[in-house]
């Protein structure tokens, strides 16, 4: 049975989701990710969905679940590369995935994961007002 590969780079796990994900594949990915987070002690997970042309409510909820479960295992998830038509459709379906951090692309996603690893997490409170 096909599995979506999970790569490890530093403290982070990387997943690139291909186009055709059936329910079985998605569930397996969820299981594999949780196993790998624990096994590798990863603190960040980047899920690249830039190839996905369709994300329906099942897949949307799956992403939310992966984010919640990972947080319990002390890892932050960032989902990157959602396509505009997919975003609009998900919102129309009533799914805004509030518990899932999103980034425009892989670079931004990695930056966000890096931020999460700084002491206290998140941005620092410094003001950088222009002019």
């Amino acid at each position, binding site marked *: 049975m096909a599995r979506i590969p999970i790569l490890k780079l530093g403290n982070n796990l990387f997943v690139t989701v291909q186009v*055709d994900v059936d329910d079985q594949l998605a569930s397996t990915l969820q299981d594999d990710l949780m196993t790998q987070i624990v096994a590798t002690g990863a603190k960040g997970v980047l899920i690249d969905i830039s190839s996905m*042309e369709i994300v*329906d*409510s099942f897949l949307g909820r799956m992403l939310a679940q992966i984010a919640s479960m990972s947080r319990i295992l002390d890892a932050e998830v960032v989902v990157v590369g959602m396509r*505009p*038509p997919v975003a609009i*459709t998900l919102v*129309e379906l*009533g799914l805004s995935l509030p518990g899932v951090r999103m980034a425009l692309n892989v670079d931004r996603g990695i930056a966000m994961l890096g931020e999460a690893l700084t002491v206290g997490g998140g941005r620092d409170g410094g003001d950088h007002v222009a002019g």
Partner: protein
Amino acid sequence: MAETTSPVEGAAVRPGTYPIVSDDDVVQFRHEVRAAALAVGLRLIDQTKLVTAASELARNALEHGGGGLGEIGPPETAGRRGVRVIVEDDGPGIADLGLALTDGFSRDNGMGLGLPGSRRLVDFFDLWSEVGVGTCVIIEKWAL
């Protein structure tokens, strides 16, 4: 900016019927709906909405209806260009249709059927269901 697509010269939606009895069938059905949407020249956003709605319905038929059938064809609404998708099953039917179709936007109405959401994605939505008999949902997306 909105992109426009023009229909492939002479293309039409070739009617087809597809079984929906497994996960693979749902994926396959999505492909067929996508192909039909492309052939008719639906805009990308409309293709995405139609395929996603069809996916919701197909999944319902599989998970709640015990498996079913999907049909793809041209719209029956007078003079409309586009795609018509029908998903039907002989499952237990929907007991509370009113609740299933309640459109509370930010609220999942708890039935997990995603019907109000699917309805928002399409231009035409029709549903028939009878307890103990089955469910049939008809949707259309038009080239506008």
